[in-house]
């Protein structure tokens, strides 16, 4: 049953974004300017230093942020703001009355949207490619690992944001916490800069948290900054984080839902 629900819900997400494709394109363009900003800044720094910074050549930096844009389009997930709204408005009642965990409802919907997002991303990538002309040497292993890693990255990010959203059951306002987490993610995921450009202790700390596996790892797996062993270890680490968050969701959801009292709806 869950397979059919996933297909139906993913189709809903796809049709939703197809219906509002201009709006989806606006939204995506807004998100995708972020890597262009970082790329422009760090290219300027690399050029000032003679063509490389912290082990990243100009080409690798460019490739990093071009691939970043695809990873970003892929790992967009439901934000805790939606959970805040659902709980405050009582709209959660609708989801709770369904014979399936709300996690699957949102995950499948966002997965379906990815088809539209990636289609809209392609012209953007072409512009970036011809503007900055990065060079990436790809191998079948790298491409295959990347294709899996971006879906695992989306899964990890969606699970983590689900847990953040669940905090609403205790506080009803999590926007400050979410903003804090966005800040932490910016610094510890490789979203702002490759972690090699950060101080050593930040890079070591990032290795112990999940953020890096949702941004930097998939990017580096494709652009050739990791050897084959590190690519496979990375995939295993992503699966490990999914396991950890699956247990956390099971534990937290059971407690969270007992605190819920419907408001309106």
């Amino acid at each position, binding site marked *: 049953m869950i397979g059919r629900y996933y297909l139906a819900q993913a189709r809903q997400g796809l049709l939703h974004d197809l219906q509002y494709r201009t*709006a989806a394109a606006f*939204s995506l363009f807004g998100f995708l300017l972020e890597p262009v900003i970082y790329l422009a*800044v760090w290219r300027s720094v690399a050029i*000032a230093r003679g063509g490389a910074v912290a082990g990243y050549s100009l080409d690798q930096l460019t490739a990093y942020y071009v691939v970043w844009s695809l990873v970003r389009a892929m790992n967009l997930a439901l934000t805790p703001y939606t959970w805040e709204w659902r709980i405050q408005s009582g709209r959660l009642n609708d989801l709770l009355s369904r014979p399936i965990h709300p996690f699957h409802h949102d995950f499948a919907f966002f997965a379906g949207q990815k088809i539209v997002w990636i289609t809209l991303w392609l012209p953007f990538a072409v512009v970036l490619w011809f503007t900055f002309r990065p060079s990436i040497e790809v191998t079948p292993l790298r491409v295959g690992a990347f294709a899996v890693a971006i879906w695992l990255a989306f899964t990890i990010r969606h699970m983590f944001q689900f847990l953040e959203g669940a905090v609403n059951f205790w506080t009803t306002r999590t926007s400050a916490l979410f903003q804090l987490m966005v800040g932490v993610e910016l610094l510890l995921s490789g979203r702002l800069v490759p972690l090699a*450009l950060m101080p050593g202790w930040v890079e070591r700390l990032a290795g112990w948290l999940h953020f890096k596996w949702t941004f930097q790892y998939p990017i580096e797996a494709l652009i050739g900054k990791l050897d084959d062993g590190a690519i496979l270890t990375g995939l295993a680490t992503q699966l490990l984080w999914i396991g950890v968050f699956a247990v956390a969701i099971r534990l937290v959801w059971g407690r969270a839902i007992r605190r819920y009292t419907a408001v309106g709806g």
Partner: protein
Amino acid sequence: MRSVSLAWAFFKVQAAHDLQYRANFVLQLINSAVALFTGLVAVSLVFQHTDTLAGWSRPELLIVMGTHIVLGGVIASLIEPNMRKLMEDVEQGDFDFVLVRPADPQLLVSIRNFRLWNLIDVVVGAVVVVSGFADLPVRGGAVRSVAFLAAAALGVVVMYCMWLILSTLTFRIVKGDEIIDLFQGVYQAGRWPVSIYPNWLRGSLTFVVPLAFAVTVPAETLSARIDPSFLVVGLGITAAVVAITRLIWRANLAKYSGASG
């Protein structure tokens, strides 16, 4: 005069509303602190690896960043809430109630909402501007400070026009949330001087979404990179943008058909 008293009346009501929710002050303080911290980390990382960024020194970049935060605070408190409400009203059909009121609809949709606590960013940004200004090796006098304030004020007017033009797109495409995503994404580009961007983006940020005018020019005025007399040109550009915005507003308003139920 009637417009000013109307705006003041709305302002007082909204300020009184926000003062009821003082916890939001703390939340906004946390949000501002996080944004400031990540911004400062980014600037600090850049200057760990280089002495200047495309010819901009660290104090000059702090002035750009501070101006960006100030303008962001003004947008978040005065402009965005009104435009968001306009988009919601069009989507839900409530815009009809604006049109039947005995005041100019553009004025009404521009002054109805206000978020008091977002003004924290104005204070935070001002502190960053002052700290960057204090670190400049050569500082201009009071003339440059006044010119900076005037340039920043013109920037606010131009950004209001941009928001209004984007918001009136909802008269044609209905769904407006993503327009906000688009603007917020583009707005982030203003955190850095536009001269670092590739030509196509620099052109867009100068002529399409004039962040260069709204953020970089005030910062350049304060850090003595351009002459204050540029303000005369700026005033002309702003007047032209205001007039074009009014025309676009009227043209898009003519496309509006009520959807209330």
